[in-house]
Structures are given as structure tokens and as C-alpha cells.
């Protein structure tokens, strides 16, 4: 087993992510309008909100790929500036939304997971047997050992997602970001992936941020939920406080009765 970054007693509540008044804009659209958020070490944070609320943008400023117009982001005590993006990103694992992968891409599952270690290895260094051991270990953790030598393009959506999570783990990150990890997966795969994410979060003492539309599964996993709307943090609190029918009705601009009916449907599904 790989050692997770050690969390010493007394440092558990250390601030891992500190976002102060972040403003991000893509051309004319403002994606984040002065968002401030602190995330402590070991927290599991759910981010919920309608499409276009700025959820993905919030994740991209944590891994430094999103460009701030103003405000400040501090990750693990370091400010992002144009020069240290690559070094901070090595400590932040990012699982993007499900991507279309060329079915004929000449790379195996194992090689794709190894890409997660490339940043850590640095320039001009090749993966050693120790790195391949880590890759095989994380593949086992996500249940993909049997498919390790398959071409990456031949996997199903759920399998691709497991590979993306394995790639992220191979990176041995301290912060784990997932953008709709269960989107476009079937019901069984959805619950499996969220359980896997929770398991990994707990066993490796990670700080985890998950953007999801999967409200039924959130309360099981999250310590805290952030509700986003129109580029603002619109509310936050425990899953019980935030994921009420009334709050969701306001967040999604839907009558409470409709929210209740839909939630009942998805629970049954």
C-alpha cells in the first residue's frame, strides 16, 4: 500500500484550499463572481448547482488551469502565480468530465494510468519499476487489473472513469478533484464510482471536492455541501441542511412540489 501524505495530529484542520474573492471570466461571460471558500484538510466537499453555475470553473482554479481575473487562490499554503502552476498541479489530482477517447488510440490502460506519475517524475526521467508497481496497485484498487493491458479506447464509460481515478491516484495527490464523475454512467456504475471515491478519500486522507448532480448519493459521502448559482456560492452547510427540498427549489428555480416529486423518482431509480 502506498502511504498517503501523513496528516499529523493537530494539523487535521489545516486549511488546504483558500479561495479569496475569485473572479473568473470567459470572454463576456462571468463564470465566478467573487467566490470565497476555505477547505480544511481531510474534508469531503460536494459542489451542487444548476448548469452554468461555475462549478467546473471553481475546480479549475483549484488546479490552476482557470485564469483568475482578480482574487487569490492559495493551495497547500502556496499562492498560484504564472510560474508555479505546474508544481502545484502535481499535488492536485483532477478527474475531468467523461471525455471521448479515440477508440484506436495506441495506449494501454496501464500507460494512461502511468501518465498520472509523469508530472512527479519530471523532465528526462523515465518510469522505473517502482512507478509501475504503483500503477498496478492503483489499478487493483479501482478494480481494473484484468483490463490493464487493453487499449484505453476499448473501455466503457464506467471503466474509463475508473481509469481516470486510478490515474489521479497514481499521481499521489493531496487534493482530489472530481468533475461529475458519475455523469452518463448507469445507476450501478454511479453508485460504484461514488463508493470508490469515498473509500479512496478515507483510506488516503485526501481533501476531496466533487462536482455532481447526483443528489441522492451526496449525503452518504460529503462532510459539507456548497450550493452554487450564477457564479456565486449561494449556500453551504451539512448535506442535511443544504439538500432540503425548499433550498433545492430555490437553487434550481423549480416549485418545491416538483423538486420533491423528482427526488422521489431518482431515489426509486
Amino acid at each position, binding site marked *: 500500500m502506498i502511504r498517503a501524505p501523513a496528516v499529523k495530529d493537530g494539523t487535521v484542520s489545516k486549511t488546504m484550499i483558500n479561495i479569496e474573492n475569485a473572479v473568473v471570466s470567459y*470572454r463576456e461571460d462571468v463564470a465566478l463572481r467573487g467566490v470565497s471558500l476555505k477547505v480544511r484538510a481531510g474534508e469531503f466537499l460536494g459542489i451542487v448547482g444548476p448548469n452554468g453555475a461555475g462549478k467546473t470553473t471553481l475546480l479549475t482554479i483549484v*488546479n490552476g*488551469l482557470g485564469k483568475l481575473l482578480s482574487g487569490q487562490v492559495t493551495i497547500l499554503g502556496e499562492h498560484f502565480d504564472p510560474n508555479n502552476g*505546474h*508544481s502545484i*498541479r*502535481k499535488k*492536485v489530482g*483532477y478527474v*475531468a468530465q467523461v*471525455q471521448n*477517447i*479515440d*477508440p*484506436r*488510440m*495506441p*495506449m*494501454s490502460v496501464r*500507460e*494512461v494510468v502511468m*501518465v*498520472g506519475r*509523469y*508530472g*512527479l*517524475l519530471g*523532465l*528526462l526521467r*523515465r*518510469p522505473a519499476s517502482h512507478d509501475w508497481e504503483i500503477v498496478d496497485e492503483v489499478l487493483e484498487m479501482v478494480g481494473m*487489473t*484484468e*483490463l*490493464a*493491458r*487493453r*487499449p484505453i479506447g*476499448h473501455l466503457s464509460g464506467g471503466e474509463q472513469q475508473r481509469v481516470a481515478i486510478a*490515474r489521479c491516484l497514481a*499521481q499521489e495527490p493531496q487534493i482530489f478533484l472530481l468533475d461529475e464523475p458519475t455523469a452518463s454512467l448507469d445507476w450501478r456504475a454511479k453508485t460504484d464510482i461514488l463508493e470508490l471515491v469515498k473509500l479512496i478519500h478515507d483510506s488516503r486522507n485526501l481533501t476531496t471536492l466533487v462536482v455532481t448532480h447526483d443528489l441522492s448519493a451526496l449525503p452518504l459521502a460529503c462532510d459539507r455541501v456548497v450550493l452554487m448559482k450564477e457564479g456565486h456560492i449561494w449556500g453551504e452547510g451539512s448535506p442535511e441542511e443544504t439538500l432540503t427540498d425548499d433550498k433545492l427549489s430555490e437553487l434550481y428555480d423549480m416549485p418545491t412540489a416538483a423538486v420533491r416529486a423528482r427526488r422521489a423518482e431518482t431515489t426509486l431509480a
Partner: protein
Amino acid sequence: MDLTIFGYQFMQNAVLSVLLGGIACGTVGVFVVLMHMPFIGVTMSHAAFAGAMLGLLAGFDPLLGAFGACFIAAAIIGPLADRGELGPDTSVGIIFSLMLGLAFLFMGLMPGTKSGALEILWGSILTNTRSDVILLGVVAAVVVGLVTAFYKEFQATVFHRDMALAVGIPATVVFYGILFLTGATVTASLRPIGGLLVFSLILNPAAAAYQLTYSMKRMFFLSAGFGILSGLIGLLMSYLFNIPSGATIVITSSAIFGIATVISPKRKVKRWQHQPPLEVRQ
């Protein structure tokens, strides 16, 4: 078959050119195919051609003009493709037509015979000088050297640029590097292969290799091998039947692609998937 012709220096230069050109074109071709950017490559070769025409017109070395134009085109195409404000195909298409327009403008302004211009358009491997061969050798060595030294960075960027960035690889620099290497390869191949035809030698061997393997390393070797093979067979045909070498090289590379597509195991994906995974088979 009388092969004493290979004793002459012009023929040795020609053979060396197709060897080195095959390696350089085959290697950058892998990027062009895997990153789905054949149009960007075509545009680079037209930029090189326009630059060479400017050189001929203004009286400086056409290859210098070609290098300059390639670098400028890469510097414009990179950000245009990245920002996606117009959609990469539209913006690259505009640059492509502009380059073609400039090339014809410079050609039209040229006084007297246009044989120098036509030579660069169609290529003429048999009039290569030693310095052409040396330039191609330097470019091939730089391309292969960089790909070998930074293989993992290239591999990650080709697989997925955003993902490569997210794990801490300078993927943007790598992407621009790929564009510049493509430009340099096009420029160095301009005289032997020709501005119009060089792109087939970049695309076809890599596309053929792409049909045959699921290993990126093997794809690089196969692609360079097919590039060399296209060049040697094309050269031989050109000599035997007294036809233009650029044309025979490109037709040979297309034929190799055709054969690779027919025998490609990737067309039989379904059957392959029914096999148990490797571990079980062993």
C-alpha cells in the same frame, strides 16, 4: 537491373534524402495523426511554400523564407486553435487560403522563368545538394532526439492535452513544439519532396502505422519505417520509369496506407474484444 547509378553522388544524395526525410516526416506524422490535425499540417506546408516563394522573389535563400513562414504560421495557428473563438477548422482554413494566396502572388510577381518555384512545388530529389541532405539530417536528428528525450511528455500531450496539463506537464509548450517541429520538417523536405507533396509523406506513413498497432512506440517505428520505404520504392520507380520522384513517393506511401488499412487488426475490434484479457490467456 542496372544499379550502377547509385554510385553517383546525386543518387547517393537522393537516397540519403529519402532516408532522412522518411524518418523526420514519419515521426512528426504520428503527432499529426494522433492529435487529429491533418489540416494544420497541410497549412504548415503551404506556409513553407509561400515563404520559399518570397525568398525566391526577394532574392534570399528560399529555405530561410520557408522556415520563417512556418514559424509564423505555427505562432498564429497555435493560439487560434487553442482559443477556439472561430473553431479551429475555420481559423486554420483562413490561414491556409491566405498562405496559398501569398504563394501565388509571389510567384506571379516573379520575373522571368518560374522553374525555381516549380521545383519547390513539385520537388526534385535528383538535384539535391549535399547541403540539402545535411539540413534534412539535422532536422531528422532534432526531431528524433527530442521525441526520444521527452517521450513521456509527448505521449501525455498527444493523448489528452488538458489531462497532461492537469498532471503538471507543460503541455502547451509541448504542443507548440510539435507545431514547430512539423514546420521544420516540412521546410527541410521542401526541395527533395516538394511543397505540395510533402504533406502526404507526413500523413500517409503515420496513418498506415495507426492502423496496425495499439502501442505508441511501435507506431513511431512503423511510421518512420513506412516513410523510408515509401521514399526508397518511390525513388526506384522514379528512376526505372523516368517519372517525377515526388509523385512516385507519395503514391507509394498511399499504397502502403491502403494495404495497412486492409490488413488492419483494428477493423476486427469486435472479434478481439471477445478474447479473454492477456493475463487469463497467459
